[in-house]
């Protein structure tokens, strides 16, 4: 009996281990090895730290690196600000059918692929697009307005793309908040603001943190939205990795960039957990 359970356990574990080992651990080790070498001449490589040296001294790479990090944090914050009231309404104010319908409405944009969604924004925002035409028609603008290819457009795209991943965990945690606790807060003389600060936000913290982590990761690793909506000034770090690997055939530097991104996201997530005084276990469990 016990032996059988053991075999069952091993059988169940194997796919996970294969998944982790073949698709995550081994490729990453290979990447690390690539990032730690330097091309000497045709087909000759030597171990060295040049790639990291280059990545950390060239102002352009560093600037893009920090820009991507700051913009991702900003996108996460904006997503939280927009998603919180939405999630609160769905979880606490809406009842029955309406609740389901609203939840579905959040979900529906995700039925189409990210490419189509991003292209939708391009159609809306471009110079000959809907918004520009509407502004001209109402007389608010006297010539075509270009709203694409800047940081704001990119931010809109990023927030829109990751909205669902913030709303879902927030709705789940907020639903578990007993209404009577909120009422008690008011009965004890709390204002709307203090109830929000003392009761609702502390209760929703696990949802906020896990939502933020997911959204931050998605923004940081996003390739499509920054490339399509961002335009000529907005180089995203993932774009640089793609460029190094595919366009420039410089796998060494690309691999080093990849590792820098991995370290950056790990550090920021760790920092976020430390800041909110939570452990990964609490958040994910």
């Amino acid at each position, binding site marked *: 009996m016990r032996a059988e359970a053991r075999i069952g356990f091993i059988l169940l574990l194997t796919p996970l281990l294969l998944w982790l080992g073949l698709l995550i651990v081994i*490729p990453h080790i290979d990447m690390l090895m690539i990032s730690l070498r330097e091309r000497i001449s045709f087909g000759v490589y030597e171990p060295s730290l040049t790639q990291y040296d280059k990545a950390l001294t060239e102002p352009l790479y560093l*600037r893009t690196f920090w820009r991507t990090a700051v913009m991702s944090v900003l996108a996460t914050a904006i997503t939280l600000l927009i998603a919180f009231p939405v999630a609160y309404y769905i979880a606490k104010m809406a009842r029955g059918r309406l609740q389901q319908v609203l939840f579905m409405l959040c979900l529906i944009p995700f039925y189409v692929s990210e490419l189509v969604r991003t292209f939708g924004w391009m159609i809306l925002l471009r110079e000959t697009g809907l918004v520009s035409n509407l502004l001209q028609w109402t007389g608010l603008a006297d010539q075509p307005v270009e709203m694409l290819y800047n940081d704001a457009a990119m931010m809109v795209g990023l927030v829109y793309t990751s909205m669902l991943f913030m709303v879902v965990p927030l709705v789940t945690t907020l639903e578990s908040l007993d209404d009577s606790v909120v009422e008690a807060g008011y009965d004890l003389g709390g204002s709307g603001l203090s109830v929000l600060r003392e009761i609702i936000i502390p209760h929703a913290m696990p949802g906020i943190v896990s939502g933020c982590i997911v959204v931050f990761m998605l923004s940081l690793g996003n390739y499509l939205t920054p490339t399509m909506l961002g335009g000529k000034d907005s180089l995203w770090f993932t774009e640089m990795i793609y460029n190094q690997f*595919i366009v420039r055939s410089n796998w060494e530097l690309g691999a080093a960039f990849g590792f820098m991104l991995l370290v950056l996201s790990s550090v920021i997530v760790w920092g976020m957990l430390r800041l909110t005084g939570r452990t990964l276990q609490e958040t994910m469990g």
Partner: protein
Amino acid sequence: MKKTLLTTTCLAVFGLSQAATADTLRLLTWGGYAPDEVVEMFEEQTGHTVEVTKSNNEEMIAKLRATGGGGFDLAQPSQDRIMGPQMEFGIYKPMDLSKIDESLFIPSMLEATKGNTTVNGEVYGVPHVWGTSGLVMNTAEAGDVVKDYTDLCDPALEGKVSYRLKRPTLIGFAFAMGEDPFAAYGDEAKYKEIMEKVEAKLTECKSNVKAYWSGGDELMNLLRSGEVTASMAWDTGGWKLNEDNSDITFVAPASGALGWIDTFVLPAKGQADDVAYEWINFVMQPEVSAKITAAAGNFTASAGADEYAEDALKAKYQDSFPPEAVDNIKWYPPVPAGLEAIEGEVLDRVQAAN
């Protein structure tokens, strides 16, 4: 060691599903180079099947590099991208020219490609499709201002310009600025100096650019909607747009259009070389080449295919290329290794500049 391990495991996992039969030709090519009609004709005549994967130069090399030259039986990178990658990664295998019917090719183009793709005395490529890049613009709006690449920076065109952030732009601007980057290919210091000048120009020009295009369709949209009036692009793009709007067309710049030749090469681990040779000899027949010209919009290196080409396309070609412009075409020589690293840094800095 790690790589071998990785490859072995991958092979073990995917080997069964991807085992190619000798009768399948896995072709890595550009859009339009293997139109359905031609593929069907070939399959009917020979009984082989053809799997077409569409790509571009950089992706082709990256794909072949990742597998050490496996996964495809025939690839079509540009002739300037054969020598360097072959010396660096060994992803191609030499051609057996006796299996190719050389009489099907335009002799001068065949010789030039052979010369440019020779590594250690072995020939690696034969020509297929050729074309140029230059200026695609709305001649009614920008025709008076733009005569050469550098004119794209004219203040009159602010916010109405688009080009790619890739090496053709660097090379084109260098020629337009009176430099000769191809002559400096062998001299890294000199090349770097030229590229620095180009970088300064492109940075200064940035405010004129609406967006750096990356896909052909993206540029077509920008030009068609009138959001962009002048751009740097391939000749076929201009001719295609010309059908919808007669003001838009391809113009060979004063400093010379940049000429490219896409080739046939055999990936190092290709498994169907004989089918690949059959395919080459098949598509180089004048009638078949004319079909490819009709689909891709570009002319081929097939001798005598001109006779079969559509008159409309011929007329557009003659319009864009008066005889002196043809003589002025700058053909890309093979890119020495190392130069692309310099270009890459320049392009990155231009993109990040404000």
